[in-house]
């Protein structure tokens, strides 16, 4: 066990994987500086800066993965992936099937995601709900350093495509970079979940399997289901709800795809009330899928969701109101019969 920061844990796992396997390489915009610790250990051939050409260097990751490498391609922020969406939808998602199952694509797409630090509607999206639609695309977003390291290790070692989302609010690197967290005049501590930004990481690293949720809190009255920063918001909300005698469980999905259907069903079967807390858009994504899982499993439940209902506004108080904050979660949970 050792204490690590969230971003550090991700890089630590990448470093472990790179040390283990020569075929693991990484590229993306500014990675040489952002991941300078990887650069100086593995050299400029394995840690490459790219031009601002997301389509080409993502597709190149696919091509490289099909030709023997195991690339970790960094797309900076997930908001920029739409520039290269076709690589995901039409290539990464399809080529194994097109080959009749003969061709694996051991590719990790790494990107920051999520908001709360006020960077505007084009730099704080989650987009995980839509990504999860495409066949053969695994999508994960860890909420703690241990999961960050464990899921990254799994992501690099699996022969499948994994979109690995680092929540920007949890990552010390992104907060410094994007929120100007370096300013002594700014204090984001009340927004940043301490347990998420820093925490214990098992050594040697342990893989965290894809598609396995983690129960963060057991409760009998209502299940709060989320991931990333949302999982922490749910913990806080559970605390508040506890104060009014509502006993909430918190399920941290960790993976959006594959989705841990059993865990969802187990929790909600107990509580018969569920609030899905999702930093992604309300329609077309994760929160609806959870509803479908419940109905398919024939679990009758009072259901509510707290998600993003439009463009994330820039002004801090508007942004806060638009994101799934604790107050909204508590209100939704308390409002369920």
């Amino acid at each position, binding site marked *: 066990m050792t204490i690590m920061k969230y971003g550090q844990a991700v890089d630590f796992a990448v470093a472990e994987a790179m040390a283990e396997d020569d075929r693991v390489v990484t590229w993306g915009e500014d990675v040489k500086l952002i991941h300078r610790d990887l650069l100086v250990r593995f050299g400029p051939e394995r840690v490459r800066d790219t031009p601002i050409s997301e389509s080409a260097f993502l597709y*190149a990751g696919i091509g490289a993965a099909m030709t023997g490498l195991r690339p970790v391609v960094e797309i900076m922020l997930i908001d920029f992936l739409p520039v290269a969406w076709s*690589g995901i939808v039409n290539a990464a998602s399809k080529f194994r099937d097109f080959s009749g199952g003969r061709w694996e694509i051991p590719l990790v797409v790494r990107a920051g995601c999520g908001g709360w630090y006020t960077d505007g509607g084009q730099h704080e999206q989650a987009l995980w709900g839509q990504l999860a639609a495409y066949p053969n695309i695994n999508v994960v977003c860890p909420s703690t350093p241990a999961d960050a390291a464990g899921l990254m290790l799994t992501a690099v070692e699996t022969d499948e495509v994994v979109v690995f989302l680092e929540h920007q609010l949890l990552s010390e690197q992104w907060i410094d970079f994007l929120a100007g967290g370096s300013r002594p005049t700014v204090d984001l501590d009340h927004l940043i979940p301490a347990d998420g930004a820093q925490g214990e990481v098992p050594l040697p690293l342990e893989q965290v399997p894809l598609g396995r949720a983690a129960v963060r809190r057991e409760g009998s009255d209502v299940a709060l289901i989320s991931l990333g920063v949302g999982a922490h918001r749910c913990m806080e909300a559970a605390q508040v709800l506890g104060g009014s005698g509502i006993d909430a469980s918190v399920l941290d999905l960790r993976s959006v795809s594959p989705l841990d259907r059993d865990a969802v069903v187990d929790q909600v079967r107990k509580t018969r009330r569920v609030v899905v807390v999702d930093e992604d858009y309300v329609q077309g994504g994760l929160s609806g899928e959870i509803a479908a899982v419940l109905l398919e499993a024939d679990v009758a439940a009072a259901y509510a969701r707290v998600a993003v209902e439009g463009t994330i506004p820039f002004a801090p108080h508007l942004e806060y109101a638009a994101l799934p904050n604790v107050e909204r979660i508590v209100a939704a949970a308390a409002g369920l019969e």
Partner: protein
Amino acid sequence: MALPKGLDPASAYRTMVRMRLVEEALTQAWADGLVPGEYHSGIGEEGINAGVLAHLSGRDSMALDHRNTSPLVGRGTDITKIMLEVLGSEAGLNLGKAGHMHLMDPSLPAASDGIVGASGPLAVGAAVANQRLNPGRVAVAFHGEAAMNQGMLMESYNLAVAWGLPVIFVCKDSKWSITTYSAEVTGGDLTDRAKAFGLRVRRARGDRVEDVYAAAGDLIRKARIGAGPGFLHVSCHRPAGHFEGDPIVRLLKNPRGQAAEWGPPIVDSVRAQGGGSRSDRAAALTDLAKRGARAARDYTVRSRMDPIRRGRRLLDPASAGRIEAMETIEVETAITVARETVGQRATFGADSGGAR
């Protein structure tokens, strides 16, 4: 032109003939209703494909576009399996999952992508892998001239240069993009464009396999020794149009029939109340007429610019005949097997064979 060093004309000719025969077998199967969906043949591109492929060996990578049958045939992928795949059989190269736009042969390796422009960055990725894991191997991307307006392809030129990769981009310039005359939607000259990214550029005539061979050889040799990427611009002609059933080809082949179909609504529209001025409408008609005239010119040069007819002259008629006979037997056998496997079918859907 003297034959370039290293070119075995018999082998190049055999490759071209094999490609042509497979394409003809498949276009015939398409016409017979045995190939579902679209089929983009590589007829007319054999000189390009054979000229480039003659330099590839071992596990050099290929990234292909929607005209991928011929390059695979040329690299030795089992033609029966290709045919079965294109005819929609589970016994096909990709278990019936791919179809002709996505033929995949990991054993070469070669991957096809129906998204225009994607072959470029895919080849770049393969080249990164080769550079690191298997120095000396190259990756070749095949794409059309119209694909050069697709951002990701241009991005991939830049990436290839920035990273000094062993990749060669082969631009097969058919002058057409489905029904659009590429020059009408393209600014500047395409080789200038490639050069401006810092690519080493060569040009060749696609109807002359020896010309392609020489130009490609130069670029591929340099790429192999780590001297960076190349861009090969090759002219070609596509007598069959964009795909089988191409409406412009139908128009050219059967002007009356097509006019009967297209004419009345066009006439109604030209006359319709509301809309453009008289000169707008006249300009539109001129546009269509010009396109028709260009198509008539470009689509009918088959025999004169046929790479196979020209390639035949590189060897003596007797050897050429022997090659043709042998390839014909192989291709006939393959298509017969494929046709028998999927059986007769006039309709697609649940019951339309292929499982066999």
